[in-house]
């Protein structure tokens, strides 16, 4: 979800930063960064109303090149940071960006539990199947038995299917893009950000330096007569939407559909929107129903003191509840 600028037209330039980028030549991260800058601009968001929350890894450096609030967090913890930011100031558009090691290994527990909350924000995972910044170890998305460049032995751990995981966890928007299809990526990011709920966008991101197996050529199917492995769900008869109020049967069917597409790999790799579930309340809505004043004054914005710094909190009721001073025989 997004708060738009009311005052002036925002362009991708507003989101550029004059800082050299230190990714390797040919890295997929460039495409993702550029798509994100464009998507934010197209949404007309004012940069100071945007917080980009990065993980630790090559991918987690993206926010330095976006002219908004940028938070470079701790390895694996980008979602809790992002959640805190968003819940405390819901007027911010919050986008979390991080690596597959960050998100699926050290951050997997937060991923699962973020799904349960459905906070209105977006998580973009840079899926390169390796730990880029620590020099090419296998990440949880690298399939079993593959041996990328830096591995002394074939990968002994299996591949986690991040889309299925997002589904099991409860993400209400699930999509996949490809770093070298920037045009599609911009659209996906816009949708993800506009989705009122927790969106997960998996981006296939070639790492030319360490992932010599699943590289640009492989995705493009160079090894099989230029028949690309990546294809767009848009080109098929695929409807990702679970409408508000959908019945259980529909929900189950739609979920099954996601699984079917999520399990494809190797020959055909789907990109596009896998799921758009409009049937689940956001965490912000739930907080609002606990305490309606949440919607009026978010935690970041509510007044807590008067001009003299005196507390605005009125605890007299609470004191009365615990008061033990009463006349003998009197009412509590």
């Amino acid at each position: 979800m997004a708060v738009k600028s009311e005052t002036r037209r925002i362009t991708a330039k507003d989101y550029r930063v004059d800082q050299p980028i230190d990714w390797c030549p040919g890295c997929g991260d460039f495409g993702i960064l550029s798509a994100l800058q464009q998507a934010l601009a197209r949404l007309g968001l004012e940069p100071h109303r945007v917080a980009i929350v990065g993980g630790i890894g090559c991918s987690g450096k993206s926010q330095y090149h976006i002219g908004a609030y940028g938070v470079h967090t701790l390895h694996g913890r980008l979602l809790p940071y992002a959640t805190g930011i968003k819940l405390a100031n819901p007027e911010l558009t919050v986008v979390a960006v991080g690596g597959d090691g960050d998100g699926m290994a050290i951050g997997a527990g937060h991923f699962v539990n973020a799904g349960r909350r459905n906070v209105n924000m977006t998580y973009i995972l840079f899926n390169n199947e390796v730990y880029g910044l620590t020099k090419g170890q296998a990440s949880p998305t690298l399939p079993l038995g593959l041996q990328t460049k830096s591995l002394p032995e074939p990968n002994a751990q299996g591949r986690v299917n991040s889309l299925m995981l997002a589904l099991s966890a409860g993400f209400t928007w699930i999509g996949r893009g490809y770093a070298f299809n920037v045009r599609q990526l911009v659209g996906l990011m816009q949708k993800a950000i506009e989705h009122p709920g927790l969106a997960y966008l998996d981006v296939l991101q070639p790492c030319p330096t360490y992932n010599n197996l699943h590289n640009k050529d492989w995705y493009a199917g160079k090894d099989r007569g230029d028949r690309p492995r990546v294809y767009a769900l848009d080109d098929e008869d695929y409807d990702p939407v679970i409408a508000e109020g959908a019945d259980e049967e529909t929900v189950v069917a739609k979920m099954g559909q996601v699984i079917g597409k999520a399990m494809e790999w190797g020959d055909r790799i789907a990109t596009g929107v896998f799921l758009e579930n409009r049937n689940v309340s956001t965490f912000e809505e739930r907080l609002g129903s606990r305490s309606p004043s949440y919607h009026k004054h978010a935690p970041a914005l509510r007044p807590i003191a008067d001009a003299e710094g005196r507390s605005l909190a009125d605890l007299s009721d609470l004191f009365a509840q615990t008061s033990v001073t009463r006349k003998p025989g009197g009412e509590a």
Partner: protein
Amino acid sequence: MSSEQTDSLAWRVGGPQGSGVDTAARIFAGAAAAGGLHIFGRREYYSNIMGRHSYYDVRVAGRPMTCHSSVVHVLTTFEEETLVRHAISTGEGGAIIHDVESSDVRLDRITFLDERVVKDLTAYLGERDLPPTTAGVLEDARRRGVEVFPVAYDQITETLAGDILFKPRADRALNTIAVAVSCALLGYEPEYLADALKWIFGGRQEIIDLNVKAVELAYGYVKDEFDHGRLLHRMRPVHGTEPMILVGGNEAVAMGKMAAGLTFQTYYPISPATDESVYLEAHATVPLKNGGEGAIVVVQTEDELAAVTMATGAALTGARSATATAGPGLSLMVEGLGWAGMNEVPLVVTAYQRGSPSTGVPTRTEQGDLLFAIHAGHGEFPRLVLASGDVTEAFLDAAQAFNYAERYQTPVIHLLDQTIARTTQTVPPFDVGSIRIERGDVYVPPEGDDVRGPYPRFAVTESGVSTRPLLGQRGGTHWLTGAEHTEAGQVTEDPVIREQQLEKRARKLALAAREIPAEHKLAVYGEPQAAFTIVSWGSNKGAILEALERMSAAGIDARLIQVRLLWPFPREELAPILEAARPLVVVESNHSGQFAQLLCGQTARQCDHLVVKYNGRPMTCGELTRALLDIHRGTAEERIVLRNPYE
């Protein structure tokens, strides 16, 4: 209030978890409070939901008290385990109330009685030619001058049930009956009990009626069965006291946070911290003095890693944000703490200490996390560590922590110990009016539309403090990162900027050390000029204060220096005061003397005596006084361990 033996009455009730021990204690405390008496309550229980032994000490007096008593005047029991565990703590002239059915039960038949207790008690009774049974235990008590009152609870509840009530429902009034028996024996008016019942059971009239009936029956039973007035101790109402609230440590902290304007709290359940967050959750809409109301967002996170980082995220937006946890959770928060330090985030971490390490003795007390709190996290970043000495300080420090956090833009650890969390005390209502909210150097966006970042969030200043834009403010965009950074927050590895930023952050700690007034750093009690000096921190304060009174009564001048700001360590203030200290006694609730080590590391002054307790139970004035008197007489070892096998 009065008692033949002392000026306070130590009442104890025990029973299996889930059997209503807490309610019994609340009824007793409520009744006492209704009579204008002061209360000091303390709870002990196992890490278990149902069945294991728990007990509650309620000490009452006509004046405020600051600790519990290890010698019990009235022991109220309704099953054998409590009887067996605590009879030995009942002092001469005291009373034991027990179920007639428990009069002769073998110790080794009591399910949850620790083998060690069975063994030691059996030996103890054996030495006295007594059998290893409740009968033996009771006979021993009698020999030691304790009055024993066997009560036919079943008979009373049967009467209570009468023809109309399902017996098990009447049985649920057992704790009320036990309390009423003790009150009757103490000669306390039953009306106060009725008051307490109304207070506790709110509008549930049926329950109130049943319990009031139970009280009547109990009083009648005592009148019929026992030689009225046989008990030395008496409990009498006092009148005209100031308004008081009966409040526990967890609630006090929650209230302090509310008063300070907390709007965001995260937690992952853990004893003894949970109750604070659950209290906040249950009171998440705060009435405001301007007529409105304000929400507190309380998020139960998936773990403590999320709790600390989520709270930090919220703090970046300007929300007053905190998380609350205990030892194991603090251990998991370490990395997040460092990030907050590096990014100069005003984050409050409320850390309750419990018996440790690891899972340790989770429902018991300890002060084992001091050096950890001060040094938690790889690398060096400023943090403040405060420790409260009692429930009222817990309230004030909880509020003050936010001011420090925002003034110095850095994490503040508010260290409490389980003793404080488990204390329920009558105190004057907390003084919300005394709290001044200071938000530190926050950026104010200028007028106009085209203000653009990046903002030099980490500008190098003389004080170390830089202006802080909040996420979402126009013109304030910048970067935050756990990596070393430039003024705008971009990563840098430049050696010079590294030094500048590291030094800038360190200056904030020096600033705090300079600015915070001495009276917030430490407090001196007792005879300010006395040479006999006790230095301590946290909940030990309570026992020490009463010990000072006893020392003074014995003609010994002594003083307590309670250190409340543990980090930055108040070296400048403390060192001169300690010069004349002889002996210098450090008192703390851990094994290794962490505070003593800290003191020496910071002032090069070694203490002459270290008094420690680490069996998981809070110190009492009695055992402490003995140790201090030994020290005074010169007969004490350098290191004194307070032990009590029956608590």
